[in-house]
């Protein structure tokens, strides 16, 4: 059984300062890295003799419009099936430069996950073989999961929170 400390130490030994913000919210080891390092890091974790993170569970993104310089966060969930260990890696991007290298060469499943993230958030995965929208129409010119596109019409007055005691 691997512990969070062991895995974190292994990553630190190899990457040093390049991987930061180690944390374990609800027992899931989380760390952050930069977009220059993400492919190196995941390649290392996938090929590591004991860690063997051979399964990509999920790729998604989060939009934080208020945190300047860290507007977008791309989140990777990796899973080592041999060790039964999950790992979350985050990469923060700025709003005016949303490029990040693709992971399709490592995991075939990254293809659609990245397309979905592109469709909903507009994150551009450099080197992706087929970066198109997947859930929405091709003609759409915005990325709907960003926070600047509210779900409901802000001008409506019958739905304001005060009317509901909030």
């Amino acid at each position, binding site marked *: 059984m691997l512990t969070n400390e062991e895995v974190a130490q292994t990553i630190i030994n190899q990457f040093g300062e390049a991987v930061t913000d180690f944390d374990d*919210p*609800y027992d899931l080891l989380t760390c952050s890295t930069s977009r220059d390092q993400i492919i190196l890091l995941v390649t290392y974790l996938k090929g590591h003799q004991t860690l063997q993170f051979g399964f990509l569970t999920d790729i998604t993104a989060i939009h934080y419009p208020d945190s300047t310089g860290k507007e977008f966060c791309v*989140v990777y969930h990796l899973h080592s099936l041999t060790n039964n260990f999950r790992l979350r890696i985050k990469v923060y991007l700025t709003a005016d430069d949303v490029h990040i290298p693709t992971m*399709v060469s490592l995991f075939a499943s990254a293809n659609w996950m990245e397309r979905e993230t592109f469709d*909903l958030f507009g994150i551009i995965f450099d080197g992706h073989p*087929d970066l198109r929208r997947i859930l929405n129409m091709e003609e759409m010119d915005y990325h709907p999961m960003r926070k600047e596109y509210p779900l409901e019409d802000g001008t409506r007055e019958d739905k304001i929170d005060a009317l509901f005691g909030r």
Partner: protein
Amino acid sequence: MVSEELDIANKNLPAEQGPVQYVNELTTLNLGPTHPATHGIFQNILQMDGEKIVSGEQTIGYIHRAFEKIAERRPFYQITTLTDRMNYCSSPINNMGWHMTVEKLLGIDIPKRAQYIRVIMMELARLADHLICNGILGVDTGAFTGFLYIYQERENIYEIYEEVCGARLTTNMGRIGGMERDLSPTAIRKINELLVRFPKVLAEFENLFNRNRIFMDRVIGVGGISAERALSYGFTGPNLRAAGVDYDVRVMNPYSSYQDFEFDIPVGQSGDTYDRFMVRNEEMWQSLRIIKQAMDNLPQGPYYADAPQYYLPPKQEVYKNMEALIYHFKIVMGEIDAPVGEVYHAVEGGNGELGFYLISDGGRAPYRLHFRRPCFIYYQAYPEMCKGLTLSDAIVIMSSMNVIAGELDA
């Protein structure tokens, strides 16, 4: 070698640039969106060389309902109704998975009895899901009989849902912190009756198909995928187990007391359509085992946790008890405040690892909610699995993968 395969699989090259030169002109064939075998609405654009499928491309998103966006405005209870509509063949699993995610965020431990009832309901849902998948596989190979025989059992499972929560398809039987109500004597009787009757039906179904020459000719060696490719494509659930990898969330990361039960993980070898069919059949036997154990050892005690600020009180209480009325009002109006945090929780859904990635900023609704939908992830392997086969094979492959449109698009 893998990257070479990827190139072919992902680029969907026009035929004249493809690795093989074709003598005939290729036919473009739209399989779907409104084809009876596409189980919902998604389009497969196949390039056919005569009878053979050369390449394919899928277009999904026809029922994209923006659940993740809607969830950002909804209090935690109201998101349950969104999860219902993902894999609608086994909605209790989705519901309970969501409730468990919120419980994890809030740090609520729920009593054993509630956990066991959840296990029973989730396994019933798995039975219904696999039953329909395998039955429809029969229909898609041209054998309606099997489906007709087993449909009655799904009806009986729905009647159990109805007894437990009042609804049949959009089941809201779970609550954050436990169950809405206890199992009634009628529900217990119905589950026990099902445990007696279901094995007979399942055995009859297996007799119809398992060694049926025509069925075997249609499915053996069709749509096989190696374990390595399946893992690379992110397969989970029966589709991965058919390829020989014994990954099951219920065993690897037990939730809701699954560690208390004895059951096996059936695995296949070749990952072809027949293996997927057999793995699902065997999983139904295992689900019956789990339900039997849970019913026999159903613990006494409360069926909800002592967390009044989060648990929606039973309706009878609301009519009599002032505190219950206050909490009911506060919860329904979305006053439930969650701590700041991020949670990933996975359950073994009908199709594999169903994950909920929830980021809370302390508000009444999630800041961001992402569903890891197994259907969405494995459906992209479909053209690769169909390559070089005929159209009738493509139909059975899609059917045996159990692609549910609601889960694909979310």
